């Protein structure tokens, strides 16, 4: 295959008069997909400064052929090739950063045809990081070099990296009959071992992170419940819908920004937080005043009533916003991820959510333990009558506490809207998990809730790769049920004299 390609590309090069934009553009526009692919490959092998403009246009999918601009029908294959061509163009760029980026791109997608070109660039490369990156890109191609010495160097180089690709390349190299030179084989084996070790670390870290991330989401979903259920003893089945409302308020805020402040759209989540909190808190307080107020001390009744509320809220949202999901976009600073290791990317939205979750927990803790309101809440929840006698306005405290719980759920909703979809049934998916988290953590125990959430998240993520998502979830449920049998009071139970 390579040799044939070489010849072909040479043919192409001969055909090409040194490249005025127009001709290339013309050729490209005229060509069919496979011919376009060949052109791109040839250009990638022979980047010239003149062609930079054209390739940039190609990236946009718009080129101008004799005067008028023409939209191209690209497919993924062509896009890939354009990226490669683009990269090899950038190797010519004066800015070392660009060159580095290009080299990294080429590590993935360099074609054998570019061997010669890359070699030349490497020789001329001054910037050290770019140099090493480029040499690695080159090494990928040199694995098939006729000279064992070159191959050996290449293999050594690959061994240094933690690239998943390097692993497969080395593995293919080690297949029977591929690599004949003994020294290279040995080097490849040692290198492979190194790479595997590096990859393993990445995987483990990745698992841990996803566990934490899932935990933080569970935490945000359950925290509000820890207050309404844990402190007020209300089985708030409408809690999930509070999450949902929070997510929908995020959606509305986003719409408003699109309408009125498209410039600042990046920051709509920041405004969404207070809005969501306010909206859900109000709904919560309304519900508390109108319905739940009459049901304190009858937990099972609150369960039924709040379930009714949740049905109404769901259908209400369906009528208002339609049954379909609505679009909530991640702003730029929440999309993409942080490349920690070659095989470990930490998505920004998840990182932010973890931090956010902890922040919310901290604030809640402050609120409950360091403020008058918190004191009142704890007083009321421990002994309603006594608190009333001490002049604590129990009614208002209940209302505020419930509002607080709902508001926190609203904040959770904002976070959920950044990782999942926003639809009327959003809450239904979280309600059972949230309850399990709270019960597992021990009712009325903020700390317990935190531990339970992260515990569940991590356990889930350890199980999932082993036995699959479905069985994993079932198993977790089973384990929780068993655990509650063992410790009905949850992880953090207050012991005390049994009072009847």
């Amino acid at each position, binding site marked *: 295959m390579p040799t044939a390609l070489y010849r072909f590309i040479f043919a192409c090069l001969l055909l090409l008069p040194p490249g005025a934009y127009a001709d290339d553009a013309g050729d490209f526009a005229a060509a069919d*997909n*496979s011919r376009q*692919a060949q052109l791109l490959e040839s250009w990638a092998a022979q980047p010239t400064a003149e062609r930079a403009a054209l390739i940039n246009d190609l990236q946009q999918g718009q080129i101008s052929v004799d005067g008028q601009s023409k939209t191209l*029908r690209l*497919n*993924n*294959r062509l*896009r*890939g090739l354009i*990226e490669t061509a683009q990269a090899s163009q950038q190797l010519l760029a004066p800015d070392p950063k660009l060159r580095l980026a290009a080299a990294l791109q080429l590590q*993935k997608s360099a074609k054998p045809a570019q061997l010669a070109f890359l070699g030349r660039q490497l020789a001329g490369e001054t910037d050290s990081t770019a140099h090493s990156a480029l040499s690695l890109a080159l090494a990928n191609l040199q694995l098939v070099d006729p000279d064992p010495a070159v191959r050996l160097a290449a293999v050594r180089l690959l061994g240094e990296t933690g690239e*998943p690709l390097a*692993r*497969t390349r080395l593995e293919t190299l080690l297949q029977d009959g591929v690599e004949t030179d003994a020294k290279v084989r040995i080097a490849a084996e040692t290198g492979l071992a190194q790479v595997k070790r590096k990859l393993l670390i990445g*995987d483990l870290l*990745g*698992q841990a*992170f*996803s566990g934490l*991330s*899932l935990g933080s*989401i569970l935490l945000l979903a359950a925290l509000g419940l820890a207050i309404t259920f844990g402190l007020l003893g209300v089985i708030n089945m409408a809690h999930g819908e509070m999450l949902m409302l929070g997510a929908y308020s995020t959606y509305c805020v986003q719409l408003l920004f699109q309408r009125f402040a498209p410039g600042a759209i990046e920051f709509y989540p920041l405004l969404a937080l207070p809005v969501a909190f306010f909206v859900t808190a109000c709904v919560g307080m309304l519900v508390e005043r109108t319905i739940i107020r009459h049901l304190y001390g009858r937990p099972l009744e609150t369960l039924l009533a709040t379930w009714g509320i949740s049905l109404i809220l769901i*259908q209400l949202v*369906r*009528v*208002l*916003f*339609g*049954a*379909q*999901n*609505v*679009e909530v*976009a*991640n702003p730029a600073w929440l*999309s*993409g*991820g942080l*490349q920690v290791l070659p*095989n470990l*990317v930490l*998505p*920004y*939205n*998840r990182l932010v959510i973890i931090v956010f979750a902890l922040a919310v927990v901290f604030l809640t803790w402050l609120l409950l333990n360091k403020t008058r309101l918190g004191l009142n809440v704890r007083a009321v929840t421990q002994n309603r009558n006594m608190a009333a006698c001490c002049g604590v306005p129990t009614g208002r405290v209940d209302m505020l506490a419930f509002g607080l719980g709902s508001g926190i759920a609203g904040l959770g909703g904002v976070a959920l809207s950044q*990782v*999942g*979809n*926003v*639809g*009327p*049934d959003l809450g*239904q*998916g979280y309600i059972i998990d949230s309850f399990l988290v709270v019960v597992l953590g021990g009712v009325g125990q903020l700390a317990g809730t935190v531990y339970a959430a992260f515990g569940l998240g991590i356990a889930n*993520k350890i199980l999932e*790769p082993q036995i*699959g*998502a*479905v069985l994993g*979830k079932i198993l977790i449920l089973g384990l929780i049920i068993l655990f509650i049998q063992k410790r009905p009071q949850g992880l953090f139970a207050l012991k005390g004299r049994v009072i009847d």
Partner: protein
Amino acid sequence: MKRRSLLKAFTLTASIAAMGMTWTVQAAETIKVGILHSLSGTMAISETSLKDMALMTIDEINAKGGVNGKLLEAVVVDPASNWPLFAEKGRQLLTQDKVAVVFGCWTSVSRKSVLPVFEELNGLLFYPVQYEGEEMSPNVFYTGAAPNQQAIPAVEYLMSEDGGSARRFVLLGTDYVYPRTTNKILRAFLHSKGVADKDIEEVYTPFGHSDYQTIVSNIKKFSAGGKTAVISTVNGDSNVPFYKELANQGLKATDVPVIAFSVGEEELRGIDTKPLVGNLAAWNYFESVHNPVNQKFVADWKAYAKAHNLPGADKAVTNDPMEATYVGIHMWAQAAEQAKSTDVDKVREAMAGQTFAAPSGYTLTMDKTNHHLHKPVMIGEIEDNGQFNVVWQTKEPIRAQPWSPYIPGNDKKPDYAVKSN
């Protein structure tokens, strides 16, 4: 006291049951047609728009003077995403409302739930959604795609040079029958194309799964081993978290293209499409198709949505199941005209070989024997405007193979519809 109230209870139950009998209201000069789509519950998300589309189509037909000189009268019921309720409502439509035909169902389970009722009462159901096949009832006309009209061409495309000549495949789906069957067929097909089992990874998630971190990172790992494509039969709601995770973990369509069989324009309305650009979907129709029929179709729909101010009307879109509904209802009307009657058996006969110039730009034919439409297959690339750019399509409509040749034992199945009872 107890005994007294016991008696009351019975009185009540009976009286409710009695209501069943009192609902047979017969309008004079109209033909009743039933619409059996969930308007509440989990499936409302997909099915409500089909109900509206059906109503629009019926209006359209009535505007042209109805069928056999009679106007069509739609009877809408809500099975509330509750499968037994589908059977109950189906029976009600057929026996109480005496409808001539029913358009409805989305999920396979709902279809399977009503199927015995339609076969027992010899009713007529038009089913507008792509499904796993393995069924061919004389009382159902399937206007959605069978696997060979969607899945297999899609994979062929992925393996082609333009599709990126993928050599490894991740079959990712929600754990229920449609993905399972489709993936089973695909695996067999891939084997026939010389793809080894080690290059195929099958992954399933529970309904409403929302955490795709592990799965996406596994896909990444898997894709390091060679040119990989993901074939997603992930069910509606889970798609958003899946695609978001893909984008955030930096898997670009150019590296690992994802082709989805259940993501259409309607679903994209709920997704921020920027990160998805370049990912694929396989359908038999896309809103972006350029032809006069489709332009009118889309325009009519947008107008209808505005006129009846459906939620989100400003962003109203059409999609494949809607087109299938539209085509189905029109074909039924044509058949009824041709048969000069709405009698099920006569209509069934007339349906065979019925043709209709569909919005997809092709003239679709109802197969003479197997009750499935001949449909074209299109591969669309997601664009940032939530539309699809058709990058590949079949020259001709393809005949459906409801009994997939890739499933052992199907070769013995007859190629014409027979009652399963």
